[in-house]
């Protein structure tokens, strides 16, 4: 028995060691979120859904705003539309990831109507949230490397085959670099059609949640104690914008009022229906345009400091 325990224990330790090496080396290639939970707590962060996760590049902010008085580096703590709904769950995770001693942080919140929606069948007041059970909401430890809690709870999110293709990479700063771009306009149109179909589906099954709006207000108050906040509406293609405007026609008014009442600058990059930043599916700005967009965002921040 002793020999069995020693050998199997040693083999188990070896396996964990190899797995740790693998995750530390390729964690960004094999999962879209894993590395967000392996970095230390941060002083500055980007909040939002997948359009922010892919469209706002922290390394550009770090370099453009390096001489400003913010506690950088920046962390992109945005997730996808299945997870990044404003609410008590996301707020809890954000506060876990935020270094408590932050005094002069930079907080960029990319908000769109979908982040304030709730399933019609969910009663938010009773604690029913569609995003519960998913990362980051199911994570107790958000700054641990390697993060085995993530591996155990979210094993199904991993796509280990990704180490061969390396088409998408989640950088240590939380930015998801997507290199799987459409080869031609046919592929682009097909992907865009898929996105449009998805958003049309949302319009029928979801409603704007008052509780999420209240929670957003609380989040802003939390951030105010730690630094400066900037509200952003990240650009998308006209067709998607029209759907979200029809879903929440007063969204602009809402953001303007939030901006005024909290004294937070708001940058709307969707003022014109023409999107100057190229997307790869109508919804997500591609990595090249993302660079330009992030620079433009930095310029706006500088002008409003």
């Amino acid at each position, binding site marked *: *028995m002793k020999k*069995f325990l020693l050998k*199997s224990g040693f*083999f188990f330790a*070896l396996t964990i060691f190899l797995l740790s090496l693998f995750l530390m080396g390729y964690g960004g290639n094999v999962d879209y979120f894993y590395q967000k939970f392996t970095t230390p707590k941060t002083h500055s962060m980007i909040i939002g859904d997948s359009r922010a996760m892919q469209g706002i590049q922290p390394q550009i902010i770090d370099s453009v705003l390096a001489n400003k008085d913010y506690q950088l580096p920046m962390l992109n703590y945005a997730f996808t539309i299945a997870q990044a709904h404003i609410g008590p769950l996301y707020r809890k995770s954000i506060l876990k990831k935020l270094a408590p001693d932050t005094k002069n942080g930079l907080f960029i919140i990319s908000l769109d109507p979908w982040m304030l929606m709730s399933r019609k069948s969910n009663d938010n007041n009773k604690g029913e949230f569609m995003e519960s059970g998913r990362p980051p909401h199911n994570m107790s430890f958000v700054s641990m490397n390697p993060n085995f809690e993530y591996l*155990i709870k979210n094993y*199904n999110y991993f796509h*280990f*085959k990704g*180490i061969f293709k390396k088409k998408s990479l989640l950088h240590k700063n939380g930015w998801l670099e997507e290199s799987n771009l459409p080869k031609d306009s046919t592929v682009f149109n097909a992907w865009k059609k898929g996105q449009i179909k998805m958003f049309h589906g949302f319009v029928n099954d979801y409603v704007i949640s008052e509780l999420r709006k209240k929670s957003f207000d609380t989040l802003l108050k939390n951030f105010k104690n730690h630094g400066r906040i900037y509200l952003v509406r990240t650009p998308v293609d006209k067709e998607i914008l029209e759907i979200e405007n029809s879903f929440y026609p007063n969204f602009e008014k809402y953001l303007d009022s939030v901006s005024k009442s909290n004294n937070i600058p708001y940058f709307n990059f969707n003022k014109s229906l023409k999107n100057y930043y190229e997307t790869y599916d109508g919804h997500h700005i591609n990595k090249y345009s993302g660079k330009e967009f992030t620079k433009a965002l930095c310029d706006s921040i500088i002008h409003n400091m």
Partner: protein
Amino acid sequence: MLFNSFEFLVFLPTVFIFYWFLFNKELKLQNLLLLFVSYVFYGWWDWRFLSLIAFSSFVDYYCGLSIDKTNDKRIKRRWLIVSILVNLGFLGVFKYFNFFSKEFAETAIALGFQVDAFTLNVVLPVGISFYTFQTMSYTIDVYRGNLKPSRNIIAFFAFVSFFPQLVAGPIERATNLLPQFYKKRKFDYDKATDGLRQILWGLFKKIVVADNCAIIVNQVFNNYSEYNGSTLAIAAIFFAFQIYGDFSGYSDIAIGTARLFGFNLMQNFAFPYFSRDIAEFWRRWHISLSTWFRDYVYIPLGGSRGGTWMKVKNTFIIFIVSGFWHGANWTFIVWGALNAFYFLPLLLRNKNRVHLDVVSVGKFGMAPKVVIQIGTTFFLTIIAWVFFRAANVVEALQYLHKMFSKSLMSIPLIDLKPLVFILFLVVVEWFQRHKQHGLEFSKMKMYLRWSVYVFILGLILIFGAKSQSFIYFQF
């Protein structure tokens, strides 16, 4: 609780530690722990059905004792009938009632009567076909005098609910497994390490081979009218390996797990796709069920003793019943009947026991004749598997019709990557075909063995498909 889940990854070592360190002082403690954890294992899926196992165990325990208590053959027989009725009754209610009710209603309507099918809104308890057959083997063996009835209720209940093989077999014979619950288990290093290897191989077969094939198989079988013949043919081959990887993988994990606790379960699969004829295939596929039907149905019916007609009739009965055991659907019945048809020429020519040895023993490759034999057998099984997998018999026929159309020669329209895993599986099992499982090593240096383990683990991690339930859970 699934074997391929994180819950089981925590459950297994925890039970192992408790079993060998805290409960190993005496036999009763070992059995008590196994009984408790087996009920936890089963209750994880649905605790309400624990009462079913407990009731079935109690009835068979009591019937066993009652059979032994009397010398009156009629009374013995009565207790046996009680046991069989209770077990088959459970199966009838949970598994077959709705099927018979619907068939009855449809037949009545066809004859001009106005009848509404009365169906029960019940969930099929996981593993019911397995543990009811296991307990029936107990009372039948006690009745036949092959086994003394158990007077140890804890051991008996633990035998019925033994968690490694509770939900998908192997369907153990009481004569093999029950006596193992009467002796205190001692830790055996070689048995335990080989058990771990068998678990690893089972996980590979399930997570890498079966679950990757399942993605393609589900896609193609659910939309078969949209695919060409070659795609349908490949999906059928993938299904053959999906069901093999799924079920034999489960059996490997079950047998390996049992070995960790000092138990020996019977081999359930002996590399069936290397069979040279259908008779050999059925000696190597789901052995615990085939032998169950042989011992408790075929032989009592007269077996092959009563002339040609009797042989043919009994063969059809056991194959059809075996098909029906899998599920209340005509597809399974046709699958069973088709296998009986395959078996018939061998039976009539007395050639059904020609290939009793391992194929090409001691040889690296195989002779052309053997290649043809194995290929033909595999082809026949694939045709039968189409019925097994299809939603109904009509769809199976349409599937086969389209598969054998001109488009059989066109380019397949699906991802062929699972072929790589299938090829790896076939090569490993070919070289290990004289052993109990794919990773049974006799003598190999430690660093080589560990490299193999790490390699297989890496394959599971990198190429493992999203976790899917085991096919045989639904039976």
